[in-house]
């Protein structure tokens, strides 16, 4: 069954979009990532104009993280205070990111910056996580505890910076400065790459601040919910590229998938969770690396500049 998308201006198979968004929604609910970094390239691959793909995915990510947020809120696995700090840092980062985005576009190197950052970010973060997860698995095999226990009084130096704040739900007493810095970096990257940034936020909060995984996922979804709702509005007002029909289809698949993902997350042990997330992030990085390093079979490409729409 095909349906014509009024803004993307092409017909698309309903079942395929539902299946695709369901799978991405599952991953999103499982790992607390928005899933935009998977869905946007997939839609572009299906010939949907990049601007429409980015803007519509923003709406989809907002909806599916809404489901996740409510689920985690009910389970009391969401730190609203930490979320508020992340959101305000994220807004600052987004503004900086948009400025950088426009500068790069003026210089004509935006596409290269985006591909290079995808490769670097995904390979580095995925690689580090994979290394860590494998080492933990080896320890379990050897009969030792997976990770060295967190002992009282043993904190990394950045947690002791001034402006300390207590985050009860996360079991964290830490300076606001490094958290805000992380949020700024994520807002910046999100604005430049058109992704929510959950895939950086989740490992960031786990590794740098040792917050329990369950709380990290809920809080990260909250941050994504706020930024992506804003992004949907901004895209609709500034470039009219939100396709409401495509967004509805993606949402129906996405929210259902996210439900099952969120449920599966409860039955997944922490070590395999980290290993799977690492492999997922690494494979996206590899996909972009292939594009960059392998000689293209068709070196030419045709684009209709957005302003001409």
């Amino acid at each position: 069954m095909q349906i014509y998308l009024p803004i993307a201006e092409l017909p698309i198979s309903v079942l395929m979009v539902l299946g695709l968004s369901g799978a991405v929604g599952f991953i999103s609910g499982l790992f607390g990532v928005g899933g935009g970094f998977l869905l946007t390239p997939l839609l572009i691959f299906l010939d949907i104009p990049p601007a429409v793909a980015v803007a519509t995915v923003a709406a989809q990510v907002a909806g599916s993280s809404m489901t996740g947020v409510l689920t985690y809120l009910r389970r009391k696995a969401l730190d609203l205070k930490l979320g508020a700090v992340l959101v305000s840092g994220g807004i600052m980062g987004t503004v900086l990111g948009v400025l950088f985005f426009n500068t790069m576009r003026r210089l004509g190197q935006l596409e290269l910056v985006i591909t290079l950052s995808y490769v670097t970010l995904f390979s580095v973060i995925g690689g580090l996580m994979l290394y860590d997860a494998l080492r933990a698995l080896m320890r379990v095999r050897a009969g030792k505890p997976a990770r060295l226990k967190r002992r009282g009084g043993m904190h990394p130096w950045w947690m002791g910076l001034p402006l300390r704040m207590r985050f009860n739900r996360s079991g964290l007493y830490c300076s606001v400065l490094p958290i805000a810095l992380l949020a700024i970096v994520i807002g910046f990257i999100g604005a430049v790459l058109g992704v929510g940034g959950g895939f950086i936020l989740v490992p960031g909060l786990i590794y740098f601040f040792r917050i329990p995984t369950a709380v990290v996922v809920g809080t990260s979804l909250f941050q994504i919910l706020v930024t992506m709702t804003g992004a949907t509005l901004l895209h609709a007002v500034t470039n009219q590229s939100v396709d409401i029909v495509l967004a509805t289809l993606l949402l129906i698949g996405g929210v259902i998938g996210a439900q099952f993902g969120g449920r599966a997350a409860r039955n997944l042990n922490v070590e395999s969770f980290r290993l799977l997330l690492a492999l997922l992030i690494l494979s996206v990085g590899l996909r972009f690396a292939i594009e960059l390093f392998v000689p293209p079979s068709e070196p030419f490409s045709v684009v209709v500049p957005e302003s001409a729409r």
Partner: protein
Amino acid sequence: MNRLGALLALLCAWIGATSARAETLIAAMSAHQVQITSNYTGSQLTVFGLVERDGRTVARTGPYDILITVRGPRRMLLVREKERLGPIWINRTQRRFPDNPVFLHVASSRPIDAMMSLEVAQRDRVGLANAERAPGNWIDLDPGSVRFRDSLVRIMQAKDLYGYDERGVTFLSNSLFSAPVDIPATAPTGSYTVDIVLYSGGVPLARQQTNFEVVKTGIEQRLASGAYDWPLLYGLAAALMALFLGWGASVIFRRD
């Protein structure tokens, strides 16, 4: 003197109209509008044409050839080329085609190279490669622009937006012909022109132009114009719908 000139002109016109100079071409489209509805997956139109000749029309040695060129709305197109820079491949050079049709289909009654020589095809802008050639500019001095132009045609052909059907025009009788025009679902909205030229022995004898448009209708049209006319309202609707569906799913699937 003035009166004599007018009389002469009238005489010439009369001779031109009735004497043995050329055939006339009559053409019609099966429809002048393609409507995009929510189950639209492309469409097909048919061009019908008639070569009209009377007793005084000279006998032609060769057969009649028909050439049909359909041009879609014009947009600015950018063609980029990836080049190697160290170990990586990046877009380095690009060429603008400021006023280029996004849709271009050519159909003929027999292969163009059998209808006319390459020079005539270039001069008359016949065929996919020549249709958008700047008039008078037979030989492209810049070899780079040929490469980009060829790539543009190749890529658009792969997307079904450009195409050439060398036997797309069928003669139903000696003078009546028809040609299907396939409109893929990805063809842009806007107005399309259809140029029909009658050839014989590589010489253009008559031409005719008609047109059609591709438009969104019903809910498709209302959604698209809503997005442009009330962007804030549209954005709010999209965001609220997203949040509502998210909330709805968590209520429906609630088990704990």
